[in-house]
């Protein structure tokens, strides 16, 4: 599978996130069908597909915000633990950025970014704040540090959400349609931060409808339809020479205008 793939920093990294025969149902609906996916260190995988194809569910399953019925998911070779302290520990290493930002509404921007490091990593407040300010600067919202989430634009909130995840020093970052809730003029400011992050060597799994981002930043594109992975390839190959009818149909619908 996928011999042509070249990760961002050159040379194949070690397998980091490995999904093997993962199956999940929502009632009668088979939302994940025998999913097999290996994401290597430093790799940026973009998951695309029509609405309801299961791509968001796939993303949420990787840090067990969704349960699954059969198969296995391992991170650095360790299987996902059941609910409890062990799972919390694993989640601390897996960053997650949501479509709806989900910043903590009752806390300032700075407190949003320091909360995880202080409570989960037991970092000293002063150290955590310095680190948070550096991250906020990196995503371009340092001036907003003492405001509340509701005072920021959607694009700014999403960049804070990225900083909040990065503050935990994650080994992999999951993005669940990070720009889908944004006004058009704010999409690029978020994609720029994500592109930088991809270039810095972060391992990323990104569910998105942004084909430009997929072309620009992805090492591999995974195309899902009806709960199954239908096709995966380099962005170049996938966009210019899709193999499956489903992918051709999907690309035909979104790329013609």
């Amino acid at each position, binding site marked *: 599978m996928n011999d042509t793939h070249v990760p961002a920093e050159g040379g194949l990294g070690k397998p980091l996130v490995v999904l093997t025969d993962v199956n999940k149902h929502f009632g009668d609906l088979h939302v994940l069908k025998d999913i097999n996916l290996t994401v290597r260190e430093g790799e940026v995988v973009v998951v695309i597909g029509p609405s309801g194809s299961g791509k968001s569910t796939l993303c949420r399953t990787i840090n067990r915000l969704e349960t699954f019925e059969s198969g296995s998911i391992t991170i650095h070779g360790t299987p996902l633990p059941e609910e409890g302290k062990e799972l919390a520990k694993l989640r601390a290493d*897996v960053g*997650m950025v949501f479509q709806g930002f*989900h910043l903590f509404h*009752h806390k300032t921007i700075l407190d949003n970014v320091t909360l*995880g490091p202080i*409570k989960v990593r037991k970092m000293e407040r002063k150290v955590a704040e310095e680190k948070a300010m550096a991250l906020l600067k990196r995503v371009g919202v340092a001036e907003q540090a003492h405001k509340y989430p509701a005072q920021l634009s959607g694009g700014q909130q999403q960049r804070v959400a990225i900083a909040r*995840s990065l503050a935990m020093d994650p080994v992999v970052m999951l993005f669940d349609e990070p720009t889908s809730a944004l006004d058009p003029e704010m999409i690029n400011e978020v994609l720029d931060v994500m592109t930088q992050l991809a270039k810095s060597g972060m391992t990323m799994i990104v569910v998105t409808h942004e084909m430009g981002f997929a072309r620009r930043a992805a090492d591999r594109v995974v195309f899902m339809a009806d709960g199954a992975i239908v096709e995966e390839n380099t962005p170049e190959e996938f966009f210019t020479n899709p193999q499956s009818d489903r992918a051709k149909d999907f690309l035909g619908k979104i790329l013609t205008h």
Partner: protein
Amino acid sequence: MLETIQEYDYWAAVVNTLELTLWGALWALVLGTVLAIMRLSPVRVLQWAGAAYVTIVRNTPLTMIVVAANLIIWTQLKINLADPQSSTYIVDNGMRLGILAVAVYHAAFVCEALRAGVNTIPLGQAEAARSLGMTFPQSLTQVILPQAFRGAITPLGNALIALTKNTTVVVAIGVAQVSHAMRRMIEFRPDLLFQIFGLVALTFVAITLPMGLVTGWAAKKWAVQR
């Protein structure tokens, strides 16, 4: 009228009503929060126990709980809530039984008010907390409860007002508070019936009206902006 107020120690009764309200509300808040945590927890048994408590207590008349506290805890189990050697033993013990009954009853309403507060929080808040690696207690204390309390100020205020007025029920076990003084005043001065009723009504309005105003103001001030 003024003489009657003094003769029947009305102000002392008002102080007792305030004391019942304050301590009853504090314990109800503590117990109600514990119940809400039980109902929100991922542990089935705790959820079930919390739900059972709320369902049973909320649907039991307060008078029965007050009398039951007296008969079961004191008369049957002989558990003293005050020092039996103390000269004010009977009064203190009755007062504490009254506080206990009021707290036990209103904890059910505090629990439901808090759950209503939790329902104002988008699901994503808890998911974000979990995805950062927070444990259930951490996400509860750092993310869920702070927002739940702020979203529940108005229903908690309503529960407080109801609790204040419901303290009158402890007259059933002879605790000397406003309704107790009222009964004695009416018994001995039936000629002042309307004045006495008016006085008691005004007393409660004077206590509960500020509660409504303060909680209304606080609910606005501390509303979580989303």
